[in-house]
């Protein structure tokens, strides 16, 4: 297979470009989008590459159409993606819920920018954290990944596809304008060295009769894609194991929603990843994710130099959320700081996890500039 970009070596590219390349290496062959700053470069790269790798790139009339189209493509068997930013992400919420309900593997990239509303289109932010988790209506669960570097944007895009396919769920790659437009060294492995996961397909017609049934006992039904003669029926209404609408049956609803949530909750160990930095003996923990985590690492380094025992937990997955792990850290440290490019979002989850065992303090910043290490250090020193 020939690729329209260099593989097996390093390149110096923007976050948006890295996401597009990784998607293609992960097997994505369908992209539908709508232009929006600062995610447009993903689309432009996809438009350039997709026809060359026999994939589809199409511009829809709006973001609602874009997500609808990739869900359709996914049911036709393609690995599919769209990318957007705040306003477009808000428009996609209804169909993001549809993807949760119909267990459709898709990847949605949200390149966060200053909000609410149109806000600051070109500047980075972390204002959509809670929206990515709670933006669609009704009880639901999905996976949210947060890269901090361009290399991570690349790696996590592949991971996003793998998780989407493995768990038959939408995955949100939550990045921001800063990473999207930043250029960094990115190592692109040889395609044969990349682990690629494909959705489980039904082994036979019998399995295909239960597109929403837990027939393998792992809570993930095989996906009978269209055109194979399975005659699958897919609906966003509450449905039973066979896919038949059951809109007034409380038990069916409970069984379905619990399984959709549990298939992620009970596989947290596989899904949730994080990195720690000097956390073993830390008295002060910083919990961070995305671009701000990089400032936090520097802050930890500088604080350690001054003899302050700081450590960092950098979250790569922010949903499902490992409340217990936060609880364990809270037991160990005196205080937890949460620097975020918003007025407090993940902070709430950390507080829930800390459960009063350690004080949790928010270090907010909005306006489009990332925290400098000093922003974090000063705040921590004030508390020491």
């Amino acid at each position, binding site marked *: 297979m020939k690729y329209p970009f260099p593989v097996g070596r390093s390149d110096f590219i923007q976050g948006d470009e890295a996401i597009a390349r990784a998607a293609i290496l992960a097997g994505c062959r369908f992209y539908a*989008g709508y232009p929006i700053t600062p995610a447009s470069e993903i689309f432009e790269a996809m438009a350039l590459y997709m026809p060359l790798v026999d994939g589809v790139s199409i511009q829809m009339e*709006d973001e609602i159409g874009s997500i609808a189209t990739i869900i359709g493509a996914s049911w036709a068997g393609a690995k599919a993606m769209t990318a957007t930013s705040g306003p477009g992400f808000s428009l996609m919420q209804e169909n993001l819920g549809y993807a949760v309900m119909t267990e459709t593997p898709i990847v949605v990239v949200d390149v966060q920018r200053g909000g609410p509303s149109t806000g600051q289109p070109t500047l980075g932010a972390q204002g959509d954290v809670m929206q990515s988790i709670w933006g669609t209506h009704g009880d639901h669960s999905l996976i949210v990944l947060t890269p901090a570097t361009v290399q991570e944007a690349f790696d996590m895009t592949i991971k996003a596809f793998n998780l989407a396919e493995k768990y038959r769920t939408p995955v949100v790659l939550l990045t921001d304008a800063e990473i999207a437009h930043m250029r960094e060294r990115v190592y692109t492995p040889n395609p044969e060295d990349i682990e690629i996961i494909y959705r489980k397909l039904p082994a036979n017609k019998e399995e295909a009769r239960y597109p929403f049934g837990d027939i393998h006992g792992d809570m993930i039904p095989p996906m009978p894609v269209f055109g194979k003669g399975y005659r699958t029926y897919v609906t966003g209404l509450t449905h039973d194991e066979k896919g038949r609408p059951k809109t007034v049956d409380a038990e069916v609803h409970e069984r379905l929603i619990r399984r959709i949530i549990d298939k992620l909750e009970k596989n947290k160990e596989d899904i949730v990843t994080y990195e720690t930095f000097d956390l073993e003996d830390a008295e002060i923990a910083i919990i961070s994710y995305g671009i701000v985590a990089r400032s936090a690492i520097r802050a930890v380094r500088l604080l350690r130099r001054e003899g302050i025992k700081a450590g960092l937990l950098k979250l790569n997955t922010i949903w499902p959320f490992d409340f217990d792990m936060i609880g364990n850290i809270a037991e160990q440290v005196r205080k937890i700081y949460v620097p975020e490019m918003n007025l407090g979002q993940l902070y709430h989850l950390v507080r829930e996890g800390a459960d009063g065992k350690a004080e949790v303090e928010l270090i907010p910043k909005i306006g489009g500039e990332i925290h400098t290490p000093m922003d974090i250090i000063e705040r921590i020193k004030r508390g020491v």
Partner: protein
Amino acid sequence: MAIKIYSKYDKVKYLRKEALPTALCPGCGGGTVLNAFANALDELGIDPRDIVVVSGIGCSAWIASPYFLADTLHTTHGRAIAFATGVKVGLPDKKVVVISGDGDLASIGGNHLLHAARRNIDITVILVNNFIYGMTGGQVAPTTPFGAITTTSPYRNIEHPLQISETIAAAGASYVARWTTAHVYQLISSIKKALNVKGFSLVEVISQCPVQFGRRNKMKEPAEMLRWFLKNSVPLAKAKKMPPEELEGKFVIGEFVTRERPEFTEEINKLIEEVAERYGLGDEDAD
């Protein structure tokens, strides 16, 4: 009456000085549209206090927002006409004008455009069609000519452009006209008509974006684009006699419809009067 074009300096009284200069690129057709709009108002003697301008997102949404000195509502992408619908119902005596681009009004906002035309609500829409998403860097639009190169159709556009004026005429608008920025006099006269029509009016202006569209399609200079417009413009009367294959790639210009149809705010207020009468709510004496 002799047609007189004022210099733009003369019309600066219609602009918000503190918001200038505009963010439009050199050579953008948006300036021509703004100037034409100001001229039309001036000739009609409309007080800017009697106007509310609504726009969406994109370069063309910036033509009047925030530069035009009136009440101006700069909204979300594609929704300007829906916002304007609320404004018009609230202020039926004011002129509500939407100035925005082709991507904004006809792609993401296509449905609101259709339905406003169907309702025939008294809003004037100046739709600046530059075939491209200029602000986000030159992506393909639903108006992009077949075969044109854009950043998201790098190998040529395979979709056919939406014929906005024709579609909106079919949807029920009272007045629809299409001109290009090379037809300034006609444009001013159409905007004047549109402002005076009771009902939904659409003036589609084909406009040059040398930076995002022209550059990728061998027309780097605004003048080249204007020449392209002039060369390919076909008056409506002539177009009617031409077979469809000859019309491929042409811009049909002229007035598509001028008609009287029941207008939305009048109809809704009529209904309210009827209901008041039916329930005897008219005035205190009726008690």
